[in-house]
């Protein structure tokens, strides 16, 4: 009960008990599978998997992915797609690294520029999609591809290393409770997204737009404004994730941004099965990100090659989309 309804309520649900019991089971499925996964890896690799270093690694090295997943989530909420989030994260990271390393721009200014570029890409996506009512699928696929092209142009297809130690210190070296600070930066973004979706009128309106554009329009909601703001927020968060990526790695690798797209999508869809089943939600996405991270981490400890990542992420996305679709159908007919 507390899980399903908790955020935003002060009293325990009273009238809801009978229906909630089934929803409750649904919303616990993903955490349950996560625990099973942990137990399996713990049995298979007791020494390395259960160590506190490994736990810190799982939680502390996926903040960029978490932020990209939130960046992907926001357009989903209003019924849009943003395929450019991974590439924009990579673009932001590469611009920060290039300015800082090759052009000796101060790290603070470089980060601001990187984030601004992310926001600008969101603006370009919004303008292209909303002005002419084009398909977000195609437009963001294109802008994402352009962003990746620019990354390769800037970097000469090579990793740009040697970025500011100060940034790495704040993002990765400093720890709280044994986990690098980037974890908490990621959680801060999650908290803001959760607050917006769950506790503000504009978040509720976004939910309406995502359910049905026509209903939202005929309710007097400014549908285009809502959609534009999610593309902007998506670009902004993707830009911020670039800062975290550079800080964590101390460098920018041209291929790392686009690689975040698929797990981010998988997490957003997988997150839909938990916390608020049937709805895209920030906390579910967070759980899903760490579920995916645990899976990849455990498989790597078992000695499986890196290619397992792609197969694992892809497989989970297929399962997640199918599961959330089934849930949706079930709720519509129930």
């Amino acid at each position: 009960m507390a899980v399903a309804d908790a955020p935003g309520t002060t009293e325990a649900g009273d009238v809801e008990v009978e229906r909630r019991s089934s929803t409750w089971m649904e919303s616990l499925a993903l955490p349950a599978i996560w625990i099973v996964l942990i137990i399996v890896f713990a049995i298979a690799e007791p020494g390395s998997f259960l160590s506190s270093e490994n736990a810190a690694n799982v939680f502390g090295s996926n903040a960029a992915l978490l932020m990209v997943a939130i960046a992907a989530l926001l357009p989903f909420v209003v019924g849009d797609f943003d395929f450019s989030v991974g590439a924009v994260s990579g673009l932001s990271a590469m611009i920060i690294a290039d300015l800082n390393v090759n052009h000796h721009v101060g790290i603070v200014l470089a980060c601001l520029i990187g984030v601004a570029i992310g926001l600008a890409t969101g603006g370009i996506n919004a303008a292209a999609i909303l002005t002419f009512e084009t398909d977000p699928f195609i437009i963001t696929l294109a802008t994402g591809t352009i962003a990746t092209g620019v990354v390769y142009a800037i970097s000469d297809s090579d990793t740009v290393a040697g970025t500011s130690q100060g940034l790495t210190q704040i993002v990765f070296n400093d720890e709280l409770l044994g986990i690098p600070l980037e974890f908490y930066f990621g959680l801060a973004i999650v908290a803001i997204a959760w607050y917006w979706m769950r506790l503000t009128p504009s978040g509720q309106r976004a939910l309406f737009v995502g359910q049905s554009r026509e209903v939202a329009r005929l309710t007097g909601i400014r549908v285009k404004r809502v959609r534009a703001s999610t593309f902007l927020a998506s670009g902004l968060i993707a830009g911020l994730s670039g800062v975290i990526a550079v800080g964590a790695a101390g460098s920018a690798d041209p291929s790392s941004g686009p690689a975040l797209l698929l797990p981010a999508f998988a997490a957003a869809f997988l997150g839909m099965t938990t916390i608020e089943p049937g709805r895209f939600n920030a906390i579910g996405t967070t759980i899903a990100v760490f579920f995916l991270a645990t899976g990849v981490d455990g498989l790597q400890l078992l000695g499986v090659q890196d290619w397992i990542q792609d197969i694992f992420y892809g497989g989970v996305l297929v399962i997640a989309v199918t599961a959330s679709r089934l849930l949706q159908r079930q709720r519509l007919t129930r």
Partner: protein
Amino acid sequence: MSSEFTSDLEVSGVLQPPFVRLENISKRYGAVQALDRVELSVRPGEIIGLLGQNGSGKSTLVGILSGTVQPDSGSRVWIDEQEISFPLVPERHAFSFVFQHLALVPNLTVLENLVIPEFAQAGQLGRPINWRAARRRARDLFREFGVSIPLDRRVNELPVLDRAMLAIVRAVANLRRSQLDHGVDGGMLVLDEPTVFLPSKEKRFLLDLIRRSADAGLGVVFVSHDLPSVIDVCSRVVVLRNGQLVAEASTHEATPESLSQLMLPASLRTVARDVASPEEQPRTTALPIAVDGLVGGRLRGLSLNLEPGTILGVAGLVGSGAQELPYLLFGAQRARGGRLKIGDGAHPLRDLTPPVAAALGFGLVPADRAGEGLATGLTIAENTEIRRLKRYVKHGALRRSWMRREVGKVCVEYKVKTRSPNARIVELSGGNQQKVLIAKWCDANPRLLLLHEPTQGVDVVARDEIYSLLRKAANAGAAIVWVTTDFEELVTVSDRVAVLVDGALTADLASEQISLETITRLALGSSAGLAA
């Protein structure tokens, strides 16, 4: 009123056996008897008008003919004097249908639209299309029916008349193909409201085409509200009322008035106006609203006064423009001209958008509840409160528990039967969904409430509850515009009734002038001679 008809064919002594003969056709949906022992026969070369008010059972009968509705047991059908079993398979019996929406693919060419059905059937995959032969066949067909439409023009570039003609010619072509494929001699063409969107002067081209199809030996069933056209083209009419066949008549001496009489209930329903009667003294503080010269959709310069505290019923057939009025006044459909006056202020209707309309205190209850009215995957509370979320914000956060308590009260007030305000819309019955939709707007005391078919798909009890909810909204000072093709409902609820024909206002009936007969006569009749 019952059958004393003599068809032209009978008189001329060439009476042919019916191609299709239906007997004892019944269909029950739950408590509703949609069709009750109906009979119908269609002879080759004959054009029959199928008449009836909305809900009379016409569409169920057409559904049975097209095989989409399975009639109840005891229903029987003969084709070419051979009894066959339901459901009917239109292709096998050489039946062909043209519905109001025409079912053409707008982005394809005329020729492509003609060819599609040929390749739509299973087992046609991989068979190459011979475009030259198809073009030749299309030309021959057009020549035979006196139609000249460029074959390479895209359908969305065609005038409305040409689209309707294309749909009919295509139906005849399909029918002939079925005749060849299944070795059938006769055939039947069913036309459901094909003239609705045509200007009157173009209708005769379509009627000529229908006549030519009948002359080619087909039986034609013409379903329409357009009584002058029915009289013009049909040899006899069959009238349904409440699922029963109540009259069969020759059109020899029929007039639109005599036919509309046949469609009315024998004793006009005595109206329970007390459910929904206006308050003695409606609040007069609200500003008067007036529509001035509205041009948009099919409406051509409509002017109307919308008085606060009263319900204005708007009657009009599909195609009269009445159905577009609520959407135009909410800015959901863009108007081309006209102004909206509220008190001393005037707003150009061209600039009206839904957010502006909502901010002016307008509310819209669209006919498509699930597609346009409610977010069905969300909860009752999320739907009713979407317009007034700000009031639940305290210290920067939405208080959901507070919202849920308030919505609990709303559910009681609006008689929404549910176990919780957090139930999702999909879990509710149609009537309860509609009450949620009404609560969404009414709870904010709207200035103008625009309703389109507000009791569609709603059971009798919920309907009466909706009537009194809306009367309450009027008494609270709202001006209500109530658009429906259910004219009995308008008699029950309206303080005034505006009648629209062909996009223009033909009558504005005051309370004492409102009767089902008057509304029906005015709405069904051609605009000529009936203008108020």
